[in-house]
């Protein structure tokens, strides 16, 4: 089974190199959107692997889906609502939530400044 997949893997690998291989530049853009720091080695690895996976997924193009409605949930339930109401929690739960903050000042959550160094972002 493994051998078969290896052949499969390699053929798809080369197929994608010529067709739609993802460049490390695309990988960098996606990683920035996902707020994920990647090493050079990882960028190369994910570029190859994503090309393989997306190439495999490409087989869905063989399926005719004209006039097919997409499925986003399978329950058949519709418009499940609840009252939009603030529920007060106990002091004990508040204390627990504050205790698991990675960094804090008293009861306040401490984070890096939000409005600075925006050029690092996309």
């Amino acid at each position, binding site marked *: 089974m493994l051998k078969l997949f290896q052949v499969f893997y390699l053929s798809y690998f080369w197929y994608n190199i010529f067709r739609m291989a993802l460049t490390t530049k695309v990988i960098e853009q996606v990683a920035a959107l996902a707020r*994920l*720091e990647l090493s050079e080695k*990882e960028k190369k690895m994910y570029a190859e692997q994503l090309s393989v996976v*997306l190439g495999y997924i490409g087989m869905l193009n063989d399926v005719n889906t004209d006039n097919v409605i997409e499925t986003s949930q399978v*329950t058949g339930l519709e418009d499940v609502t609840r009252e939009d109401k603030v529920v007060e929690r106990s002091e004990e739960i508040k204390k627990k939530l504050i205790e*698991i903050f990675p960094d804090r000042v008293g009861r306040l959550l401490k984070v890096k400044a939000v409005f600075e160094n925006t050029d690092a972002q996309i």
Partner: protein
Amino acid sequence: MRRFNTNAQITDMYLNKLTIKEASEGLKKKKFTSVELTQACLARIKKRNPEINAFISIFEEQALEEAKKADEMIKKKKQKALTGIPFCVKDAINTLDRRSTGSAKILDNYISPYEATVIRKIREQGAVLIGKNNCDAFGHGASNENSMYGPVKNPHDLTKVAGGSSGGTAAAVADDMCIFGIGEDTGGSIRQPAAFCGIVGLRPSYGRNSRYGIMPMASSLDTVGPLTKTVEDTAILMEIMAGHDPLDATTVESPKRRDAKFCVCTEKSIKSLRVGVPREYFSVDGMDEEVKRVIEKEIEKLKKLRNLEIVEVSLPMTKYAIPVYYIIVPSEDSSNLGRLDGIRYGVRADAKNLYDTYAKTRARGFPEEVKRRIMIGTYALSAGYFDAYYRKAQKVRTLIIKDFECVFSDVDLLITPTTPTPAFGIGEKKDNVLAMYLADVFVSPAAVAGLPAISVPVGNTKKGLPVGLQIIGPRLSEDLVLKFANLCE
């Protein structure tokens, strides 16, 4: 079927091997105490876990405390369905005031301030929480090799994987380190490890059990279910776990009719059943001949049952389930994992600005496969690709559901092998992403369609590795699936 003689002298030696039913009866008749039962499980964990690696956290002190309370309740004749019975939970499920890591270092220090609804229901029935199980991080995987706490080894052969993602839970139940376990199944994460480890694992219909408190993976597919030693135990747990939860808007009411209760039955009470065998599940590349033989033998055995008709059917969309799964799951995954940024909880990396805090926290806290899924998902959902990937997959998902609907207009249930091969070697597929994804080829279709499916052990290969039979039913037909599964066990 696995049965012990409960009238025989019960020694501490095998208390941990008991089923829920046996343990509950033994406790009621005061043949042993919950403390003794819990100690037997803890002793087994101490002996075997260093090799198998099924647990990330073991709550020895608290478990014995809970067991003591359970013994008092039994003394007062206030025994409930699970009073005093030790169980374990996949670490991707939140347990109140207990460490819940999801097998990823980003939550290494996370003590959950709340409890998953299903776990609350089980603990309200008196069960004793003994520990949290290793799994593929956040449920991403089919071999338990994607855990940041090391792989879980198969109790039947320590060189093989336990399956995934609920591999630790399956191994713990199979190796009698606890009486039962609770796992989570998005695309096969209960059934596949149950098959590899030789136990019973049920993926309920989507919406049957509350997902509240489960670390979310793919919100439109996630389900929570039991991993047990017998089908009967699964039925007992489903009676407790199922039902509407105001905290999960996708849940449905439990059946009120008496005949729709989750229970097991005998051959006699089955009244004319038509069971389909889909030919696509026997003809995939790389199908193991021994697995095929064991399943075919089981089908021959079933053909002899009264009032049971077995027919061949076809599910032509089967091969598209994996590609659909690997678009929908990473897409929903990458969105859900956005909450893990080291800001409000978990392990935060030191960084000079906010962007780096996110990027470094996530780089260090996630294993390779989690990052891979975030990358696939973010790519598939990015501008310009949404229609080509996610929407296309959702449309093919509709066709897979129709495929099942069409077959279920002809037959009552489907039987298939749970996996194309027995448990594979640790490290065997580690560098081949696609081969690993294809390990779920028989379990993902029912997941994509939101159907209930159970894996039942039906035999072994010559080398002693378990083989699982999968039974798939129409939506919300767990009662029928369980009744039939009991006959196959």
